[in-house]
């Protein structure tokens, strides 16, 4: 009962945010260049189709989903003020993210098939099309696989954002800053150390990493990449991150600010 109410509340807020983002992007990428061209007297150089060829329209949704997924504390504050429990918030947020991904993914693919592909005359306008589309030879099945693959990418991205955001909300702002500064530094040092070991140490070749990556990506020595290992890997990653997110939601509490 309360999950429906919370879902409506969160969906309304986040779909408004999505609309605002698209309005801002259309203004920034389509209207502003037009205005600049008009002011500078180079209107002949302005091309609407050229402006729409960039991948910003489809990329924007992924960025938006990741960003809003990291931000949950403001909603938590409002909901706990209104007697809403953490599990209800979690369930509603998952439903809302699912609905938004359904809408955004549909919009992205429709935009790709109906706008981008006719404009660019290309068939590789996203990761699936550039890596996996040759595997399935039926165009309808290929579209369905593309839809599932793109949707799962968005799901994994959103859940990754939820894990990061909800993990950080467990800490004070000071500790958050330390984590945000220390993580890239430690990551960079680890990467550099690993890379140097791989180059300098013959016994430390980590071929299993490359083999595992090839397996996950569905790499085949001949022919097209197989999308299904990647789809299965994304489903497994999504389930693991969903469980981590649920745990992090259960630990949410008001911070002493």
């Amino acid at each position, binding site marked *: *009962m*309360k999950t429906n*109410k*919370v879902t*409506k*509340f969160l969906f309304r807020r986040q779909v408004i945010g999505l609309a605002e983002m698209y309005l801002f992007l259309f203004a920034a990428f389509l209207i502003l260049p037009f205005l600049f061209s008009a002011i500078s007297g180079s209107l002949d150089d302005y091309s609407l189709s050229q402006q729409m060829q960039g991948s910003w329209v489809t990329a924007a949704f992924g960025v938006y989903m990741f960003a809003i997924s990291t931000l949950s504390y*403001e909603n938590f*504050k*409002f*909901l*706990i*003020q*209104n*007697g*809403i*429990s*953490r*599990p*209800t918030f979690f369930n509603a947020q998952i439903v809302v993210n699912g609905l938004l991904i359904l809408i955004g993914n549909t919009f992205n693919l429709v935009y790709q098939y109906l706008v981008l592909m006719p404009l660019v005359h290309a068939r590789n306008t996203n990761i699936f099309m550039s890596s996996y589309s040759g595997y399935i030879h039926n165009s309808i099945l290929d579209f369905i696989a593309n839809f599932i693959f793109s949707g799962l990418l968005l799901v994994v991205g959103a859940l990754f954002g939820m894990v990061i955001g909800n993990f950080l909300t467990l800490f004070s702002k000071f500790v958050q800053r330390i984590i945000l500064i220390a993580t890239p530094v430690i990551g960079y040092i680890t990467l550099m150390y690993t890379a140097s070991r791989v180059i300098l140490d013959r016994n430390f070749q980590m071929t299993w990493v490359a083999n595992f990556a090839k397996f996950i990506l569905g790499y085949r020595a001949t022919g097209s990449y197989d999308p299904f290992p990647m789809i299965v890997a994304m489903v497994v990653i999504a389930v693991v991150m969903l469980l981590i997110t649920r745990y992090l939601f*259960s630990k949410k*509490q*008001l911070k*002493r*600010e």
Partner: protein
Amino acid sequence: MSVLEVNHISKSFGSKHVLSDINLTFEDNKIYGLLGRNGAGKSTLLSIMTNRNFADNGEVKIDSEDVSDNDSKLGLMYLMSEVNLYADGWKLTQIMKDSESLYGGFDHQLADHLIQEFGLDVNQKFGKLSTGYNSIFKLILALCLPVRFVLLDEPVLGLDANHRELFYSELIQSYSDNPRTFIISTHLIEEVANIISDVIVLDQGRVILNQPVEDVLAKTHSVVGPQKDVEQYTKGLNVIGHDMMGTIRANYVYGDLDDRILPDTVQLSNFDLQKLFIFLTNQYEGSGKNENK
């Protein structure tokens, strides 16, 4: 009939014990005053009761059911506190609509009346409110939402004397029209003394007093007279504080008096809740703690 129980609640922040084994029962349709000095643990207790924060130990129950992550029980409480849980950019009208939706009701008639009485412009954003109107807005929500337990943490923060007076009179009217349980945490003891039916005093994370106000006041005795006579009369009684005015001494006793005879030179009367609170929580040198030195 709903009962809110706090059972064995303890909470520490680092090495500091904020609450130690708190046990309280809040009965239906009463107005409780939750008093305590700064840092006594009042806000932490209210925050734990509404499941905003976790206790280290213990549980909070409504009608024998744990409130932790329990929508149906959490929906019976509203905690108005100085902590702002509404986003600055949200409009007041939208906050009211969303709160109504989540709580499943809202007394629009009372809200309109209060908005008019307090002169609140509900078409502005939450972040634009002054400290006083910020409190007023949250008080309106607290009084208009359909909850059984209204928890008010420093409800009159930033309110001028006129608005404070108006709030107390509207609170009594609202309670009279729709009896429910209020828990008011405040430092302005004199202002709530005539409103509350029960008083709970927290001191250093422990409950040191939890009784009906009437019973508490009946046990307060101010013994005034010549120093020698007063000391003689109060010997063996629970003297929690004293005042000296030249040769005249006032001993403040908390507890029942026995059948001892009152000397003609000594006057006996009750003292107020604020004075009792100050003595019990060791506010200044005439306090109970110093009496034992």
